[in-house]
């Protein structure tokens, strides 16, 4: 069974997933071209590189890898004619728990990525690009490799692509199996053949001192696919699909306690949590009530069902006033989720119903983070395992009075004090679970 429902929900708009799981659609180049493939690239090579970047900026495309950084802005950090080699590295490490969108693109529609990548390379004067694919996707690596060969044979990449005078080589690199390889600077280290230790920033910002210490763009698989569609649809039209700060569509991966988990694609800001769970995903399992939602991959702070957030919004007379926003009415877009204290992240939406014990759920996440901490910096290395040991003990009936306070302290001593954002990723669950479900942790502490 495919994770993509055969008939799109009326709220959906499938651009990235247009051809995913479509009967008769294959990953080869002929199918791709027959479906209008490489037309955007043909258009791109007739444009000025700066025009492409301006289009991506005007489209309000935000990165889809987790941090949501504006894509056009990221590209403009690279100086077109600085005489240095530039690199684009595609982040296909997709390992955030609850996130499973890029895998569909890599396996089923690799040319979509290659086309987006070629346009990006043309825009930023990049002659060499790498697609970094996590080691758990060995089949995808083969498929993408094959697609690269096909595209080269047809002159879409390689020397003097489409007669533009521009050369582009693309290589696939397979990871060695660690979540941290998805962090962009760890990914670059890994690509250089080293242990995937995130780099300190400053000074090692990829745009300045990236791969082999050269200006480098790291973009998520989906992000680059969107570039193709921006040129196809036109930046203005693309931007209009989404919200003012977040253009186009966004894929979402819904997992957990809903009737129809899977992948979906909506215009940015088109659905609320209520619509997503109860309408799009067919609601909860019979007899269950909603307990919590983690909206943006395992690192995003958890939201408790029934919560009401205070946010700033326009009142009837146009002035800014405090507004009540019930949890189910929160719109799934970057700025709204941020304003209620969590994030869109990688759009991995995890739904928990009333059958879930929160100590159990947190322990599950803690074990993941303890296992995946790269171990480079002290707070994350020691703190992630300590938190995990504590929640395991609490779960096993060994809780002590001081546990919630100690857990809180550990998380506070990690967040904001580490080399990479894994520090936040591993402490936000603990911080938010404790804040939102204190009674469950107090109970486990008394056992």
């Amino acid at each position: 069974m495919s994770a993509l429902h055969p008939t799109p929900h009326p709220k959906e708009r499938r651009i990235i997933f247009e051809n995913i799981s479509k009967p008769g659609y294959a990953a080869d180049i002929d199918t791709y071209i027959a479906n209008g493939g490489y037309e955007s690239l043909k258009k791109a090579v007739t444009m000025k590189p700066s025009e492409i970047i301006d289009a991506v900026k005007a489209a309000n495309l935000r990165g889809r890898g987790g941090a949501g950084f504006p894509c056009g802005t990221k590209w403009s950090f690279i100086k077109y004619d600085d005489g240095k080699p530039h690199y684009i590295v595609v982040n296909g490490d997709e390992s955030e728990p609850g996130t499973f969108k890029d895998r569909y693109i890599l396996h089923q529609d690799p040319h979509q990525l290659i086309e987006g990548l070629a346009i990006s390379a043309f825009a930023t004067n990049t002659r060499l690009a790498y697609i970094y694919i996590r080691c758990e996707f060995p089949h995808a690596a083969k498929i993408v490799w094959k697609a690269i060969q096909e595209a080269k044979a047809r002159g879409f990449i390689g020397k003097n692509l489409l007669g533009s005078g521009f050369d582009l080589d693309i290589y696939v690199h397979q990871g060695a199996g660690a979540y941290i390889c998805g962090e962009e600077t760890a990914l670059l280290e890994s690509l250089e053949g080293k242990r995937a230790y995130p780099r300190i920033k400053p000074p090692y910002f990829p745009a300045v001192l990236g791969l082999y210490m050269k200006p480098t763009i790291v973009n998520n698989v989906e992000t680059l696919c969107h570039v193709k569609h921006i040129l196809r649809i036109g930046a203005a039209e693309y931007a209009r699909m989404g919200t003012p700060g977040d253009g186009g569509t966004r894929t979402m991966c819904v997992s957990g306690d809903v009737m129809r988990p899977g992948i979906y694609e909506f215009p940015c800001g088109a659905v609320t949590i209520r619509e997503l769970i109860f309408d799009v995903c067919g609601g909860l399992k019979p007899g269950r009530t909603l307990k919590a939602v983690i909206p943006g991959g395992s690192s995003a702070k958890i939201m408790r069902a029934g919560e009401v957030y205070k946010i700033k919004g326009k009142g009837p007379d146009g002035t800014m006033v405090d507004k009540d926003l019930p949890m189910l009415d929160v719109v799934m877009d970057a700025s709204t989720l941020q304003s209620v204290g969590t994030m869109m992240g990688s759009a991995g939406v995890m739904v928990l119903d009333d059958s879930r014990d929160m100590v159990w759920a947190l322990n599950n996440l803690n074990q993941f983070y303890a296992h995946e901490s790269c171990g480079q910096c002290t707070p994350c290395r020691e703190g992630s395992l300590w938190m995990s040991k504590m929640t395991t003990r609490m779960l096993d009936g060994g809780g002590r009075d001081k546990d919630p306070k100690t857990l809180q302290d550990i998380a506070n001593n990690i967040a904001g004090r580490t080399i990479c954002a894994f520090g936040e990723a591993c402490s936000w669950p603990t911080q938010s679970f404790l804040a939102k479900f204190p009674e469950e942790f107090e109970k486990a502490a008394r056992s």
Partner: protein
Amino acid sequence: MSGTAVTMVNVQVDGEWKQFPKGMRLIEACMQSGKFIPHYCYHPKLSSPGNCRMCLVELGMPKMTPDRKSVLGEDGRPELSWSPRPVISCATEVSEGMGVRTSSPLVEECRNGVMEFLLINHPLDCPICDKAGECRLQEFSVEFGKGESRLLEEKVKKPKRVDIGERIVLDDERCIMCSRCIRFMQEIAKDDVLGFLNRGSHTTLAVYPGKRLDSNYSLNTVDICPVGALTSKDFRFKMRVWFLKETKSIDVTCGTGSNIVISSRENIVRRITPRENDAVNSCWMPDSHRLNFHYLHSDDRLKEPAVRGLESPVAWKTALATAAEKLRGSRPEETAVIASARMTLEELFLVRRLAAALGVRNVDILPRPQKGDGFLVSDDGNPNTSGAKLLGLATGRLPEIAQAIEAGRVTKLVVLGEDAADCGISETALKSLDLLVAMGFLANKTTPHATVVLPSSAWAEKRGSMINVKGRLQRLNQAIQPPGQARDDWEILRDLIALLAGTNGLHSIEEVFRQVAAETPALQGLTLSRIGDLGIQL
């Protein structure tokens, strides 16, 4: 200094504006301002990985107007906007208008947090750890720790007593993963054999499969390991470091003259460690040199003066009188003096006086050319060739002298701090000499044939100065007493010269140096104390 001018930038350190060279690491600027920043992974001679997170501080940047000019406060200084997120001071470079707070509730909280994290999985086996007393973890626990453990779970188990190299043992449970040792091997020793295995809290330091930590610089990793994870096999379990007396001196194993600390207790040298001197050896020294001290306490030490035909022990007076008597009135061409470029400048100066008193031209030192390593092992195996040259004692006549001895033309020989056997003189020739005076601190092939044996002091047992291959004048200091009746070389020489040529008024090593300086233009105006701990470039 010539060349590019250093740009200075203004930085506010705990409220006070100061100037530092642009690009300096913030931690260094703070330390220079007298603000100590606790740190583990930072090392002044290595790159900054920023991994321990102990050096977190609060950072302020100048507030900017929309046209990117900094907003000035009433005092004409930039107004700062403070980042809510602490930053590591070890990898942040100072820039114009930057501000730093090295102590604040947030900074204290960060340090406390890191200390707690570092200690939860640490074995806390200080009572049996060699590093105890000079361990950074111990030190900062007292200053920044909580003093109680909140860990109720089991600690992470890791390999202990791992034999990772010829001279080093690793205890992975004590390792705090600061990567100093790894970076040293990469960046300084250029022998990239160390690395981490596994992930997270299970991260384990190891040598690459099939490799060993056997570089001739491996023991420097023990020095810079902030904890007791890497220990020296030579020093392990020998002595608690707080009992050790530390004496600043220099290494005499080669012409580099690496600066060292001699650690001793109750007249026994326990270890040698490098002492920072950027003009000579930075913070490092070769293993072969630092371990080159055990012979100080060997059974071969000469402890009593001896005179052939007299029952030992003989008094110093008798030994010196015998030597003087037999040397007095000898013809210069039948006499030779072989000295050593392992002797101090002061000693060599007295050798020159002795030769003058005897009127001999047959004087030289034994050269020790060798293959250096291009780093701290010099091409010269003698520590003071430059000194011998400066005093005109490196005459190059040794082969000629040896020949004359073999041929029987020279019948009286004074050997100072060398073995005649190393100088191309056969045992037969030594046996047939009329007089052989041997001064030294170790018995060698010469001593059995000596008419008079004068036991002297080794480098750790005396003061004096030497000039290294790069022309740097540096000081030796006395860490321990010489054994038995052995005396300081310069005193032996002074007494012998006095017997031959009348008293010379030299009562202290300082006076000898003053005489050397007075007679040597290159040393004009210098005194032993003016040389200082780091030496003087001549």
